């Protein structure tokens, strides 16, 4: 691996010419091999570059708009042993992301305009843009609405009680009504807490075999249906994050057909990993054999504990199809770092979550290689799709502030704990060889990552 360098948003803007790169720009609907010129941070015509500007060979590489992650846990404040804004945004830059939306299940959660402003300040010199998702309820306690309008004015891009759904229907309706006025989405972790009590993996044959309490799909569907009804009534925008079941996806499809303002995202691990991974499988959903069995050397690995849990093969393939047909607007990582000691425990006691910023593109490219997704759809779902949900723009047209990622789609790397930029290593993908290596990430005209 060549040397890696990280930058900051406060660095000086960059000037370079990349020749012969395949530029995939979903906003323009274009996919062409051309030169990409950046002058003082702005995309430009290569003729305007000064002589002596740095030249990069883009042969075999793909340039795309910078990726946008709607669902990132930066763990700051309160969880700095797992991740910080600095380490988390470096992980983002290394994965091609130029925006991350920091989820509010921190300690304390951002539930006032002043806390929100402070977090945005803390992210000023990070390795990608840090947007903040405000807490829906005070203290994220699910009791009383926080100052949503005030936080929206302070810059919140959306609101969520992530880690849990807004618990009661009346509170969810009040939130959606309030958000309709400020044009921000309610980002809902759709899960009925009473239906999932005690569960640690997706209900199904693998859970039965392993003797682990199963998470029922009804837990997701019941909140999705509740929220769709409330969004339809209130006119507030609903964004369902990390959908994991085909049933919930169908509900979204129906709602959209009726004109309800609902969008959704899916994580890379729900697209490609399955509940069989808890039994030790390391096959992606599209390659999974009929009976995986139990692979003792990897079974019950805490790194496979995540919420919502890794889904069934059938549901993973349905989610891939939903991404391909446009029902799903975005891929969001739910990057959830945890210190080692919270994962080297019995499976049932492992903290739920896995890191994802540095592997999202690779998992997507694996799906592309398998013929389950086309490259343009993948890039849209990582960049323009999520950006539109938080009213960010993405374009590779001349005149724009450069915000892009350049990656080698054919290069492969073995994922090693030592190489990760994240402060945590909790992913079951360690040791696997994955396609796709990011070579350059530019945010706001500054180089955030280069290898």
């Amino acid at each position, binding site marked *: 691996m060549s040397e890696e360098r990280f930058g900051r948003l406060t660095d000086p803007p960059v000037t370079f010419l990349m020749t012969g790169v395949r530029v995939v720009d979903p906003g323009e609907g274009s996919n062409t091999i051309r030169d990409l010129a950046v002058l003082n941070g702005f995309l430009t015509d290569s003729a305007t570059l000064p002589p002596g500007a740095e030249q990069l060979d883009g042969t075999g590489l793909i340039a795309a708009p910078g990726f946008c992650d709607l669902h990132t846990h930066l763990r700051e404040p309160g969880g700095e042993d797992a991740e910080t804004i600095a380490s988390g945004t470096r992980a983002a830059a290394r994965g091609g992301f130029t925006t991350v939306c920091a989820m509010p299940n921190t300690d304390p959660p951002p539930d006032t305009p002043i806390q929100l402003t402070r977090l945005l300040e803390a992210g000023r010199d990070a390795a990608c843009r840090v947007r903040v998702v405000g807490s829906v309820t005070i203290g994220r306690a699910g009791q009383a609405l926080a100052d949503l309008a005030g936080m929206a004015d302070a810059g919140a891009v959306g609101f969520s009680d992530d880690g849990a759904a807004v618990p009661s229907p009346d509170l969810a309706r009040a939130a959606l009504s309030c958000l309709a006025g400020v044009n921000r989405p309610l980002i809902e972790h759709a899960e009925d807490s009473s239906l999932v009590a005690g569960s640690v993996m997706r209900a199904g*044959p693998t859970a039965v075999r392993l*003797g682990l309490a199963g998470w029922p799909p009804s837990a997701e569907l019941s909140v999705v249906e509740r929220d769709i009804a409330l969004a339809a009534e209130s006119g507030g925008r609903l964004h369902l994050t990390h959908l994991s079941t085909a049933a919930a996806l169908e509900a979204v499809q129906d709602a959209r057909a009726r004109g309800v303002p609902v969008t959704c995202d899916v994580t890379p691990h729900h697209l490609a990993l399955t509940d069989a991974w808890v039994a030790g499988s390391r096959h992606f959903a599209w390659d999974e054999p009929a009976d995986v069995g139990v692979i003792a050397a990897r079974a019950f690995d805490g790194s496979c504990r995540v919420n919502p849990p890794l889904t069934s093969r059938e549901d993973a393939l349905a989610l891939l199809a939903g991404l391909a047909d446009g029902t799903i607007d975005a891929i969001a990582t739910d990057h959830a770092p945890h210190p080692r*000691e919270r994962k080297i425990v019995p499976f049932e006691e492992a903290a739920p979550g896995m890191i994802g910023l540095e592997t999202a593109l690779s998992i997507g490219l694996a799906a592309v290689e398998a013929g389950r997704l086309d490259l343009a759809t993948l890039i849209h779902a990582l960049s323009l799709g999520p950006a539109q949900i938080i009213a960010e723009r993405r374009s590779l047209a001349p005149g724009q502030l450069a915000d892009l990622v350049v990656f080698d789609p054919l290069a492969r790397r073995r994922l090693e704990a030592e190489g990760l930029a994240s402060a945590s290593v909790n992913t079951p993908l360690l040791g696997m060889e994955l396609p796709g290596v990011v070579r350059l990430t530019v945010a706001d005209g500054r180089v955030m990552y280069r290898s």
Partner: protein
Amino acid sequence: MIGGGHLLDVDTLSRAEIERVLDLAVEMRAARGTPTCRSLLEAETVGLAFYEASTRTRVSFELAAKALGATVVDLHVAGSSVGKGESLIDTLRTLERTGVTTLVLRHETSGAPYLAARCTGMAVVNAGDGMHAHPTQALLDALTLREAIGPLDGRVIAIVGDVAHSRVARSNLHVLVSCGARVRLGGPAAWVSGFEGYPGVEVAANIHDTLADADAVMALRVQLERSAVGAIGSLHEYVARWRLDEARMEVAAPNAPILHPGPTNAGVELTGELANGRRSLIGRQVENGVPVRMAVLALVTGAA
């Protein structure tokens, strides 16, 4: 898996491997007390780490290890650093550093022995993990059955009760099916659902169909401590519909024996008359615990 250093589950054991354990257990029963037997594991230190209450399993593992000449240490969980909040893996690594070579682990969470096997260098024997597996119980049940009714090929073994929450049932399914038996499950719907698809397993609708022509019947413990009763309405209803008694056993094969992993809840899973009557193999199960665990310890340590 067995002989390769661990016994985490029985699901990967072949029929030949299972029969090797049972044959060895029979040999161990005969050899117990001989000098050869008492020196077999003299180089080993067996650590017993029971994070859940146990009488039969813990005592028989201890006696088995001692019968083979091993040094035995019992981690008294309540009186150890576990009470000070030490994590499972830290405790196990401490045991390993003090010289424990073989770990016998019981834990309330499914899969804990897999973590122990992955993260320490000790040979690990699963003495019951959550709802997942209880390998030595299934092996001693297989030995008890083999000695009571002969080879299991084509025989119908009924398992009655809370299969869903039972590690004993899960491990018995694997062993019995591997040995050629047909397994029939009976119990309230919430306690048997999800097992329909197991190869070699059928689910019966009521106690009559469960027991009809069964060659042997295994009653499971109603695990009041896992608060599993909520899912089925009431204990009273369970007793009314599913409790084994002599009249219900009439439809089973003549003299079909009854097994129960213990401890029994008096009058809940079966009547006292059955538990203490001529059909009962409950005492034999306990007796077979020591030789089967001797065989397992000898195999995982490579001594046999």
